[in-house]
């Protein structure tokens, strides 16, 4: 988490970026992609160990 916050801070300190809201669309998209690498690292850590069994056992009956 801390690393991702740093990524955000450093990009908002750059001179050509005024505000996150005002950032050009392509830049916002690039920024989100850069953050994605950190997120994928975290997901690798937290994703259920046995994905196949987890998905197979997830059964829900009797819903609206």
């Amino acid at each position, binding site marked *: 988490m801390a690393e991702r916050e740093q990524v955000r801070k450093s990009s908002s300190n750059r001179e050509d970026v005024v505000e996150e809201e005002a950032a050009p*669309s392509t830049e916002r998209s690039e920024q989100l992609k850069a953050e*994605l690498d950190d*997120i994928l690292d975290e*997901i690798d850590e*937290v994703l259920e160990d046995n994905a196949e069994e987890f998905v197979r056992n997830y*059964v829900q*009956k009797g819903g609206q």
Partner: protein
Amino acid sequence: MSIPKVLGIETEYGIVVAGAPDANPITTSSMLINAYISALSERVEWDFVDESPGVDARGFSLEGGSGIELDTHLVNAVLTNGARLYVDHAHPEYSSPECISPSQALLYDKAGEEIVIRAMMNAKRLLPKGQEIVAYKNNSDRKGNSYGCHENYLVDRSIPFQKVVAELVPFFVTRQVIIGAGKVGSEFPGKSASKVLFQLSQRADFFEEEVGLETTLKRPIINTRDEPHSDGQRFRRLHVILGDANLSETSTWLKLGLTAIVLAMIEDGFLEDLKIELADPVSSLREISWDPSLTQTVLLRDGRRLTALEIQQAYLEHAIEHAEHYGMSYLGNDFDGPALLAEWERILGALEDDSMRLADTLDWVAKWQVVQGYQQRHGADSQDPRLAAIDLQYHDMRPQKSLFRRLPMRRRLEDMTITTAVTNPPPDTRAYFRGTCLARFPGSIAAANWDSIIFDLGTDPLRRVPMMDPLRGTEGHVGELLRRVKSAAELVEALGS
């Protein structure tokens, strides 16, 4: 003028016992809810007297055909924030209190998540080591079983239901481009995951009719359950079963807000010149869901083909004009209306341009970006169970396991506000009266439901206090009285009931 759009969300959570995959879901749901309410000091039962889920808004009644079981032995409680927490079918369900605005309804939906998190923590202490109850805020088990996240909106009874249906269906079929929760693969018979790697909606695979009363089979885009829970001469409660359960605060807020705006336009006769009628709403719902590139067009009755974004744009343009003519006070505050219109416009523009720009805003885009990123990093093919696992775990309610919580999503709420809403009712609807009575006089309340409270004063017969108007019983009406009275008997006497 449109009537105030009192609204709320009811969510059925998916449930499993980690470490005991064969656990009975009804027992598990009961245990989860009991784990929450037994930790509270008092508990008040739900009263079913005014419920009639078999009554149809089209004007006829079904006898015993609704598929709804009002099973009073299941766990069922009212909370001090005005919500209802109970076991419905085989799921734990949280129904938010009646709210005055989309942002307030978002707050109470999120309070429901917090309640479920606390319930899971309490239940874990009761289970053998290595087992825990895990709730998922999603709508599908990826094996063809779906469960709902239903929205409710107060609608003017004088508007013919057929008009509501006609003008609402194109909006409902296309709103998933904004508020879908995303799903890896498809559960539609004959549509294999190799054809649909990812789709916008959790629910679109499960809808078979345009209009109808059912909720568990042959699900309709517009549900006709006519159970106003209020004065049925003046009000209708539109019960919307189409939507996905959202985790993104923006998605939930937009789902409620945009739908409320469209309903207000219908009440004001403002969509009569929209001229958008889908040739086949049910097929269109799926075709749009199955195309995350958002370029799929759907056929209109007049022969034109439009994309979902073009149809949404038409509703947005009407909404901007409607706001100029009528204002947006029906949304319950000054800020939701302008903010919703601005966000609707921003999002349609971004979806048209590059939807990935909204990976920090919308559920389906956030999930899709993770799925694509994971696929690229690990070379996973479309059948890889790890992609399905990501789909499910996005919705895991355990903070330490939730994938959603790992994403840098934009927030609309502060955590402190959510914590307050776990125990305190919204001040602007009758939920204030329900929740506050429950907090102050739990020992004197025999039962409660949406439109009444039954007091047990110990001496008299039980006393029912009706609450037929969702906009009465607010803090403004009864706050001073509720703070002043010393007992439930004094309260009932002061109310003159």
